[in-house]
């Protein structure tokens, strides 16, 4: 409001700051008259008492007039300004109807904007909610058990005499009886013995299947874990040694629709018959272990309770309420120390609900999730929401000019500012709620596809569906409110006189805000593109980096342990056209391996070494490369008892300066073997882990896996041929197989899933950002039609006009990339920390992301800019 100073001599201007004060802090309703009076007084004072005193008096007077020093004493202060305005009621039903009508008309009149706005918000709500569901599911592991916060798993660090530590989830069987007898904090402690890779042949009438999910547990398993029973009950389920509990799906598999209770199931010959004593509801997917059958632990033999040496069991305890978990840890450790003074292992406890995301020990019962994935995806979901909210603000402010006249008319008709703010906020929330409804519909519609995509069984049934719907609606209205605040405040502040004259809308601040928002939007997009590039590169690296052995076309046939006609089978197989050679091994590479403590003879520095036992052909089939010395050979019959192969890392850790001929104590108990060869390091596990010491032993026992190297272009046919031979020669055992390269791919399954989700959500974020940019470009070119017309009349080329419109946007995108790069670098290098073998983040990734963002922005804007450039100026200029 610069009218005070216009047309006056400089000396007649009262002190500016005092003027400002008066302008802003006059008592309500008195601004106008006071300023006018004060201006007159100032002129009068300048004439009568001179300039400096006039200024002084002016300041003094202002000080006394402004709030809070002067307050109108009357209660009816509004009578001073708008005598009849108090009567309007903001929420009058007539007004509400009018608001909704106007909102609806606006929606239909600008169909493109509405579609982009509501559609974009719905899309982002849907995708963020999906990611949210995924995150919620990851975080919900094992929380469904009663008192889950009091349940802990006991784990240990496996410590060698050399001081090497390996975090490990297994515990000895004797731990639970000792705990129950000696520690009063414990309400219940229970043991779990998984199948350890063994497959049980289970028979019931004609039904016979190999089953992996057979766990042996203590009878009090159900006092710690609360898996719900469909039939039977927790107290009696595992009471007798020959009882078996199975899940609903397993029951259907063997018994169809019959009631399985009290029926008989036959397990492998040496276990015998079991009577079904309970049926559990199917195990939810969010547990860190899953099973189909439970049989009593007693089947393992009677001497368990005193065995401290065999680490084959998982121990879970439920503490009493109010028990102190920290002091419990130290008690567990000292209890073990008391029973096993020579044991160096460090015992500790893990909260049950944290196992899935943070544990990652050796011998986990199922692959764990990853905290960092959960965190990154949570942020990504948030970012996608922000992008859609930015769209909303952008488009709403861009459209503000069109609503300005409406605001003017409403104000002239006596609308309060509050009622206008309420109107626009309400409109924002209304549209957002429409988006929310669409999003909920999409959620229910797309859930099966999403489940397939992330390989989870998320459900939106009953209560969960209601919760999610409520959450989406809350999120939607929050977004609508947030996005509506700015337009509401700005629109409602218009002066009716100004907007009704139709000129000089305050648009400069608008465009700066819009630029900021577009930059933010593209910063998010560019950041996500950078993330996608890095994730994709790393995954490509994981898939293609050489493992150090030949993983292609190596088939693993399990269940050959103790097979009497194994040699005959092998001969038959090698005779097949697609098979080149066979070998046998105790374990296949690509899963967790057994370990032993080994030391160089004469030292007692124990080193934890992974090992597998192979036959003479095993290493040849796997294509393990020799560095020095020799592989196992039939020419040295003593290999099976006295020889050892180690990898380079093992040679280094065992301090073998001249490895060949070194004598190693392979179990620290006096089983000495001589190193006959050193093999090159190879990846026997996922690339998350560094290569650890590894050894090969030659042996005839425990060779339960047959490795078959194929040499075939028609793998399918070869597998069929192999199966045929198997069925003929091994009629008692079902045929099953896997491939080494698939086993390795499975190790990086979680990473691949992450890549898919990340890429998917990046695409959605980009799409939403582009929609917003497109609408904005449409709007901007519309507003500049006349300017472009004038430019063309003055001789501008089409190209220069396209450049003019495009340039602004490209600058923003460039800036956005610069802003996003450090943030993306920070997050993605954090993600890469989880890999022992990883790519370097290089500058070209950022450049590529910037380039991609630019190209995408360019394509989005180009349609509008070219359309504007090609328009005939006569059309745009004629209207004036």
């Amino acid at each position, binding site marked *: 409001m610069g*009218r005070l100073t*216009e047309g006056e001599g400089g000396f007649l201007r009262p002190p500016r700051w005092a003027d400002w004060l008066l302008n802003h802090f006059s008592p309500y309703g008195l601004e106008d*008259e006071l*300023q006018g*009076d004060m201006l*007159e007084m100032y002129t009068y004072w300048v004439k009568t008492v001179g300039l400096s005193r006039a200024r002084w008096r002016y300041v*003094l007077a202002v000080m006394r*007039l402004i709030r809070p020093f002067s307050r*109108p004493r009357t209660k009816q202060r509004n009578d001073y300004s708008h005598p009849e305005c108090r009567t309007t009621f903001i929420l009058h039903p007539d007004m509400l109807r009018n608001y909704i009508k106007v909102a609806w008309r606006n929606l239909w009149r600008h169909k493109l904007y509405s579609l982009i706005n509501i559609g974009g918000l719905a899309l982002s709500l849907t995708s963020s909610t999906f990611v949210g569901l995924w995150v919620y599911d990851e975080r919900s592991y094992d929380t469904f058990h009663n008192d889950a916060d009091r349940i802990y798993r006991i784990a240990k660090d496996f410590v060698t005499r050399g001081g090497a530590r390996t975090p490990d989830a297994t515990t000895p069987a004797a731990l639970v009886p000792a705990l129950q007898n000696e520690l009063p904090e414990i309400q219940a402690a229970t043991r779990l013995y998984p199948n350890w890779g063994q497959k049980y042949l289970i028979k019931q009438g004609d039904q016979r299947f190999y089953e992996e999910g057979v766990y042996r547990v203590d009878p009090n398993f159900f006092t710690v874990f609360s898996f719900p029973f469909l039939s039977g009950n927790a107290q009696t389920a595992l009471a007798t040694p020959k009882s078996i509990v199975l899940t609903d799906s397993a029951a259907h598999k063997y018994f169809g629709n019959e009631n399985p209770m009290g029926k008989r199931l036959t397990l492998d010959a040496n276990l015998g018959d079991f009577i079904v004593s309970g049926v559990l509801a199917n195990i939810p997917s969010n547990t860190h272990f899953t099973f189909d059958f439970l049989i009593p632990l007693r089947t393992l033999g009677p001497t368990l309770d005193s065995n401290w040496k065999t680490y084959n069991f998982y121990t879970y305890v439920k503490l009493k309420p109010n028990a102190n978990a920290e002091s419990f840890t130290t008690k567990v450790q000292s209890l073990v120390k008391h029973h096993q003074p020579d044991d160096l292992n460090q015992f500790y406890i893990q909260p049950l609900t944290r196992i899935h995301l943070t544990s990652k020990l050796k011998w986990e019962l199922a692959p764990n999730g990853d905290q960092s994935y959960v965190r990154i995806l949570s942020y990504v979901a948030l970012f996608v929401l922000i992008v859609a909210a930015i769209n909303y603000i952008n488009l709403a402010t861009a459209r503000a000019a069109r609503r300005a006249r409406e605001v003017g008319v409403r104000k002239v008709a006596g609308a309060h500012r509050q009622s206008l703010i309420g109107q626009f906020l309400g409109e924002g929330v209304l549209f957002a709620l429409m988006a929310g409804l669409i999003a909920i519909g999409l959620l229910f519609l797309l859930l099966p596809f999403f489940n397939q995509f992330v390989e989870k069984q998320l459900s939106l049934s009953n209560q969960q569906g209601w919760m999610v719907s409520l959450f989406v609606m809350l999120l939607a209205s929050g977004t609508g409110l947030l996005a509506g605040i700015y337009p509401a405040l700005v629109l409602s502040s218009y002066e009716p006189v100004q907007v009704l004259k139709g000129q000089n809308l305050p648009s400069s601040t608008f465009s700066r805000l819009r630029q900021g928002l577009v930059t933010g939007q593209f910063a998010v997009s560019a950041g996500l593109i950078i993330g996608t590039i890095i994730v994709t590169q790393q995954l490509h690296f994981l898939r293609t980096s050489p493992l150090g052995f030949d993983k292609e076309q190596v088939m693993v046939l399990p269940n050959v342990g103790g097979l009497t006609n194994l040699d005959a089978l092998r001969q038959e197989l090698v005779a097949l056209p697609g098979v080149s050679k066979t070998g046998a091994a105790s374990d296949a590479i690509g899963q967790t391996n057994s370990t032993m403590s080994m030391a160089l003879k004469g030292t007692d520095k124990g080193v934890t070494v992974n090992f597998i036992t192979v036959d003479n052909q095993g290493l040849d089939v796997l294509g393990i490369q020799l560095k020095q010395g020799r592989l196992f050979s039939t020419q040295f019959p003593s290999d099976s008892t006295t020889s050892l192969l180690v990898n380079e890392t093992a040679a280094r850790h065992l301090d073998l300066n001249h490895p060949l001929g070194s004598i190693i104590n392979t179990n620290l108990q006096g089983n000495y073997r001589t190193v006959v060869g050193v093999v090159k390091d190879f990846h026997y596990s996922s690339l998350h882990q560094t290569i650890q010491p590894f050894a090969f032993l030659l042996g005839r026992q425990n060779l339960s896996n047959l490795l078959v190297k194929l040499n075939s272009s028609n793998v399918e046919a070869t597998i069929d041929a192999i199966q045929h031979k198997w069925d003929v020669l091994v009629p008692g055992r079902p045929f099953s197989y896997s491939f080494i390269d698939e086993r390795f791919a499975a190790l990086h399954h979680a990473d691949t899933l992450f890549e898919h989700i990340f890429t998917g959500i990046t695409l959605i974020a980009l799409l939403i950002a582009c929609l917003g940019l497109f609408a904005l470009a449409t709007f901007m070119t519309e507003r500049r039609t006349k300017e472009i017309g004038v430019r063309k009349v003055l001789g501008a080329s089409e190209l220069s006009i396209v450049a003019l419109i495009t340039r602004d946007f490209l600058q923003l995108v460039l800036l956005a990339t610069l802003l996003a790069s450090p943030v993306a670098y920070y997050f993605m290098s954090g993600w890469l920390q989880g890999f022992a073998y990883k790519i370097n983040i290089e500058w070209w990734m950022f450049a590529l992301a910037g380039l991609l963002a630019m190209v995408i922005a360019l394509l989005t804007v180009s349609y509008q800019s070219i359309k504007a450039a090609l328009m005939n100026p006569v059309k745009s200029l004629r209207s004036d």
Partner: protein
Amino acid sequence: MKRAFLGELEEVVLLTVAALQEAAYCALITQTIDQQMARSISFPTVHTTLQRLEEKGFVSSLMGGATTERGGRQKRLFTVTAAGQRALIECRQMRSQLWDQIPNQIIQLWGA
């Protein structure tokens, strides 16, 4: 009802409003008092006094037209209400009553 008391300052301001007739607004009133009574009452004082008078019902106000000399801003124009008139007359009567009690010769002696 208790008779509304009219303070000295209020009386001066109210009189000025009456004197200025249709054109009485705060700035002019202040200036008039300043010039004619050679007494400098500050603008905010006059402003609050006017508000108080309006509260008591001695003056009423309405917004008047804008003029360029005050930057196009409106004035609040005051007029004396019937109650104000009564109060002024009463005030004047009381004074003249007192005046009347002073013997004429003394007044002459004062040189009035």
